């Protein structure tokens, strides 16, 4: 960890996406896994009106000194983006040398569908992200979720990806176990596959 991250004993993970993509669920699963591995943890969530298809950001903070839920700009070791523009919207959170894991699949905001605004190009997004950090892993998580059997399992693909990054002090078995025991048994196969696909994708690009 670099010296300019605040509080060397806290790992900060920001998860950003669109309401309905499973951002809150991922944050909770990740935090539950951390707790299961005996770490102190805080999750910051936003509910209510903000959830209705709008931009959502959740925080997970792991470590003894995590007291409150907020991740300040420049202090996230990992930014997990469920959608390119939403990743860009929160990129100021990334610490120097921090890692970005981003789903490359685009979900247009309504202003874009209505033709009232433009969606930035792939290159523009990439350039803007690299102004903040050089470590960016982009992959099509929706495709992997579909391969696992359900597009709704994208957040579990992302969980596998987070675990593969090595940034969180959580054992792979713990996270898998939490996933398998949290959701109804009929989702076990899809979720396990989604987790492994995400894990593999990141292990390959590291």
């Amino acid at each position: 960890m670099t010296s300019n991250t605040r509080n060397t004993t806290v790992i900060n993970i920001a998860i950003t996406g669109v309401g309905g993509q499973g951002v809150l669920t991922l944050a909770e699963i990740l935090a539950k896994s951390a707790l299961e591995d005996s770490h102190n943890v805080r999750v910051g969530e936003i509910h209510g009106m903000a959830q209705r298809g709008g931009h959502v950001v959740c925080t997970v903070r792991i470590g003894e000194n995590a007291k409150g839920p907020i991740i300040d700009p420049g202090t996230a070791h990992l930014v997990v983006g469920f959608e390119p523009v939403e990743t860009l919207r929160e990129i100021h959170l990334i610490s120097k040398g921090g890692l970005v894991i981003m789903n490359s699949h685009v979900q247009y905001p309504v202003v874009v569908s209505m033709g009232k605004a433009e969606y930035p190009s792939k290159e523009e997004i990439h350039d803007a992200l690299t102004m903040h950090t050089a470590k960016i892993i982009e992959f099509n998580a929706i495709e992997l979720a579909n391969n696992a059997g359900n597009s709704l399992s994208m957040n579990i693909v992302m969980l596998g990806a987070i675990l593969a990054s090595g940034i969180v002090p959580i054992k792979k078995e713990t996270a898998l176990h939490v996933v398998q025991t949290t959701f109804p048994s009929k989702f076990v196969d899809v979720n396990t596959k989604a987790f492994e696909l995400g894990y593999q994708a990141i292990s390959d690009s590291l």
Partner: protein
Amino acid sequence: MTKPKELLEDAPGKTLLLLANEAIARGVLEAGVRLVALYPGTPSSEIGNNLTFMAPHIPNFYFEFSTNEKVALEVAGAAAVAGVRSMMVCKGPGLNVAADPFFSLAYVGVRGGMVIVVADDPSMWSSQNENDSRYYALMGNMPLMEPSDPAEAKSMLLEAYEFSEKVELPVLFRTTTRVNHTRAPVRFHEIRERPAQVEFEKEPYRFVPVPSVARLRHPWLLGQIAKAREISETSHLNFIEGTGDLGIITSGVAYTYVVEALDHLGMNAEILKLGITHPLPEQKLTDFLRMHERVVVVEELEPYLETHARRLAQLHRVEVDILGKEQGYFSRTMEYSPRIVIEALCKIADCNTCINWDEIDSRMKDMADLPPRPPLLCAGCPHRASYFAIRTATRGKAIYPSDIGCYTLSIAPPLETADILFDMGSSISTACGIAQVTGQDIVASVGDSTFFASVLPGLVNAVYNKHPVSLVVLDNRTTAMTGHQPHPGTGITGMQEQVEPLDVEDVAKGLGVKYVKTINPFDSLAGLVREVREMVKWVRENHEPAVLVSKAPCALLTAAEMRKTGEYPPRFYVDSDMCTACKRCLNRLSCPAMYLDSVTDKAVIDEPLCNYCGTCVAVCPQGAIKQEE
């Protein structure tokens, strides 16, 4: 995903990852609370969402979603007067609704412990204002506690009940969004039993505050607050930690930011953390001021503690620099963060922050404008059809008083059918005011839960005083915005019992509205437009109010039902051969499941997002949007 079932477990010592709201729901069990009444309001909603599913499994426990906060406070207040422990829960603006009984309750006091949980919303994540409810405690003379995190939300709640019973007053338990919606490890303790029944002992000269009684109760109340202050002086909820020349006074979630900020800066300070913020431990606070040359006050929203600190310093002639909002070190708006505290402390101590935030900010500013993604009505939302019809029928020219719920989101283009909003229930009453002084057509709208909560008196007013207004009741069979709680129109109670639902149409008729109709917004969009037009015409001719009930379940309920049964209707799609790319569907309806394909330039329906409402079919002039056979 913490399930209500887990909160019920009789497992002392067990540690779960809980939201403060879930911790409070668990605390209800551990404190032996006999009755909880509330009207849902974010950021407090998960308290009721859990209790309603826990309630049927808890012996001797009653839970209700009351029709509104005033009702809830009266129900819960009376139970505590009768002698059991009770709780009322609301969001910040909800306490404004309950303000009337709030003040009387302090005068008469309670026999069983009572806690009023109020969840303020700095930054207004889901509220119409960020008023600081702590002033209610001051004005109403009610003890006040402020937890900082989920674990404290539960442990402090247990103490609040003890405190309440010692001083025979309800305790105002004030949280903020960043407490309510933070998840942290919380340890379970023993569950306390509840009495099956108590006897209501009459004491009218205490509990009926006619003037002669109230005149005696006010001095009594001030005496109780003096007693409460003694408890506050020695309570471990008001504690000092750390050492240093600099003093910091703080409460609530701001305390966690202070601890993290000092950690970040490697700075020493002595912190006075206040858990009981009314009545304040004045002696302790004054001594703290005496021990420091400079004291920084860190609290979100209003300078509540700061003003008290200044008052005490003046009163006791303490030479101390009190630094806070008055000098501009902190803001009176929006929530705080460790960064905000770090920057203020650096300004005060003349040091540098370890992170160059100015540089990060400027990097973000340089970035091209990102397309915004505000919250929206969901794909398949019945309100979208209703508002499309309202707007089309009135050609966008009527005045559209709105109300509080998901449907306020119709403020955004292209629907743009929200023109004025004050509070819960203001749709109908603001419509009346506008009708009297303009000649314009007025189509107000309100949801079903808000209709029962707060529109009824306004509707009676409109009938009796003959206000020419149209009201569309968007009956989506639930309280959608706060997480789908039942209300009197749904047929389910807080105890999860089936009862006879109240029908909006019957109620409106019963109140004397002569023109009342119910329509399903998904039956025919053209028919819906016709209905709105007819209603507006009728109001113009008859000069009295009319009600149209647009009734169809919330899209999220429909979607959940489809996921459960696995049965989906045939899919909707755009026939790209017929689509002329006129974009009418996108520009007039803007369903989030539709977008323009950047390659073909034709409209497309994003299948996984579509909720099968069929509204878009009627909007396309080419008939290009179809449903598979």
